[in-house]
């Protein structure tokens, strides 16, 4: 339908370096390379999952896309328009179209504002005048996310965690976004409530055609919700694929380790997934390992891994499945390698 060929969101070589700690002489030593050159494309209506351990840069990526953080390098294009360093004024019309849902439904709602006020704000800020008025639109939004429209004048503390997250979602919907960045939207919720919120997001995606960048550490939730999955490690993308390919036919040793670490995991074919245990912790992003960042915890590491950064390359049989590893292989052969 769109006349332009550009994807909804196109991220190329995106980096974000935070200033490092000060040394004794008050000089900055190094920088935290939170996001270290990632490429990402999101088509309209698509849902992309960003997964990885804490410190891998997935949340920073989300905040860069929404321009809550200023990128250090690379480009972010929204519908072909470069917004990498766009000014507040230039961003204003785009902010309405890229919205965010936060992890913590307690700290992300202002306790002094009513629900009506919170949901009206995006309409006021963006000068949106829906037919029937802003107040009516807020009532519609409450209804859309499964809350009682009569709760217009209540305050956030009067709601449970699951209900607050629904309010956060309603706020993201208010300005009519094309893309929602959801950063761990269900991980603060109780198990029986998580599914309610995931189903709500899935309904919105289907009914309103909103694209999602879904940031989560829970691999099973991402598998359920996303079309494509991007696995990050220490600020870089190590593997990205359609969800079927990623979960059944992962090629990066880190993805194998992540999948086998999921409790209660069952591998392809229904058997118990081969356990691959990573030793140690994620290295410091201030001084990451040379070459492949994962090599210090990888059982396949050879000399080349320390000297050369593996490029993210497409697999021969599946151009949509890209892996950044010098020795990519499916999990079966991996199990025999493991000592």
């Amino acid at each position, binding site marked *: 339908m769109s006349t332009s060929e550009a994807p909804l969101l196109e991220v190329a070589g995106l980096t974000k370096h935070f200033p490092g700690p000060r040394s004794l002489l008050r000089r900055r030593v190094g920088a935290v390379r939170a996001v270290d050159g990632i490429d990402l494309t999101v088509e309209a209506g698509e849902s992309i999952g960003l997964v990885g351990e804490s410190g891998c840069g997935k949340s920073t990526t989300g905040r860069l896309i929404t321009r809550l953080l200023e990128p250090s390098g690379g480009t972010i294009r929204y519908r072909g328009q470069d917004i990498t360093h766009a000014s507040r004024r230039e961003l204003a019309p785009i902010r309405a179209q890229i919205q965010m849902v936060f992890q913590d439904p307690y700290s992300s709602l202002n306790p002094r504002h009513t629900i009506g006020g919170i949901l009206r704000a995006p309409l006021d800020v963006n000068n949106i005048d829906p037919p029937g008025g802003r107040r009516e639109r807020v009532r519609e939004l409450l209804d859309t996310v*499964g809350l009682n429209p009569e709760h217009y004048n*209540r305050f956030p503390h009067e*709601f449970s965690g*699951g209900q607050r997250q629904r309010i956060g979602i309603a706020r993201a919907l208010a300005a009519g976004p094309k893309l929602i960045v959801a950063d761990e939207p269900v991980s603060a919720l*109780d198990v*029986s409530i998580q599914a309610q919120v995931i189903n709500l997001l899935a309904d919105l995606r289907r009914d309103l055609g909103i694209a999602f960048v879904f940031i989560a550490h829970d691999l099973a939730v991402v598998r359920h919700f996303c079309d494509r999955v991007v696995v990050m490690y220490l600020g870089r993308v190590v593997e990205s694929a359609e*969800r079927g390919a990623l979960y059944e036919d992962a090629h990066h040793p880190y993805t194998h380790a992540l999948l086998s670490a999921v409790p209660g995991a069952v591998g392809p074919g229904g058997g118990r997934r081969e356990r691959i245990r990573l030793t140690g912790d*994620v290295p410091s992003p201030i001084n990451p390992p040379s070459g492949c960042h994962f090599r210090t915890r990888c059982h396949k590491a050879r000399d080349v891994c320390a000297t050369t950064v593996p490029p993210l390359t497409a697999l021969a049989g599946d151009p949509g499945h890209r892996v950044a590893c010098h020795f990519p292989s499916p999990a079966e052969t991996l199990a025999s390698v493991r000592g």
Partner: protein
Amino acid sequence: MTSPLLAVRDLRVRFATEGGVVKAVDGVSFDVERGRTLGIVGESGSGKSVTNLTLLGLHNPARTTVEGSAVLDGTELVGASERTLRDLRGQRVSMVFQDPLTALSPYYTVGAQIVETYRRHTGAGRREALDRAIEMLDRVGIPQAARRAREYPHLFSGGMRQRAMIAMALVCEPDLLIADEPTTALDVTVQAQILDLLGELQAQLGTAIILVTHDLGVVADVADEVLVMYAGRAVELGPATRVLETPKHPYTRGLLASVPRLSDPLDRPLRPVPGAPPSLLAPPPGCAFHPRCDQVIAGPGSPCRTRAPVLVGVGDSGHEAACHLEAGAGAAGVGSAERERERAQVPDAREGGKNP
């Protein structure tokens, strides 16, 4: 048929709060056998943590009433003196918490904290205790244990802190380890390391473990028996495979259906449990789960709305569920539970509001 290591019978815990009396635990019974792992599953407010804190006397006695019985290898824990409990804690029963940074003191080195525990219970000398502490740190997989023992907790990563906590908990080789959400704050790869470690140490030392968690996958991986709690009561109890594969209580079934798993078909819809857990200030009458249950027995005088169900055997091998559908309509009433209900306070209006 020896007696279990820990036998908890009809445990009741009530807190006095500004809003009224909270019945955090309302008549829970279970056994823990030597060398076995009991998983306690529930959502926030289900009473799973409170049950364990009160066993060790780690509650505020001024605001808490504990009734019932919990016998650890012949010693009654409920109502035991602080002196008795202090001798038990760390030696016979230890605890590992969710957040090791708040559980470890920031002012003492990791080694000193383990040394203190060991010397308190064994009367060992400083040198001997330090050697023992280093040995334990090494055993839980902390590299360069002798050096790390002289460091403070803030220098440890999350996974390493949890290892240090486990070293401290097991330094006296207790009979029972209570692990309250020990891996919830950790990444999955580190979680897998810690769960493996607990399993290895359990095999070596014969420690029984109570693992409190909200994660059904963790339970499936490590628990021998499972206790499912809801609103302060036990709703299902039995061997882990039975409870997880053939759940009998609608709440257990609901939990399992609402969690996505890697083994699911790609497009299995999630079926959430509707509504939210009730306020413990004013739990619903009858079965606390009935307002969210899709199998409520209809009609006036329905037992679901009037009588709290008790655990009854379903099938063999010690599988029990507290549901009127399993018990049949003629199950005996539960007098004491209903007597306490009269103390329930006025419903909290906002919790009773619409919550689709």
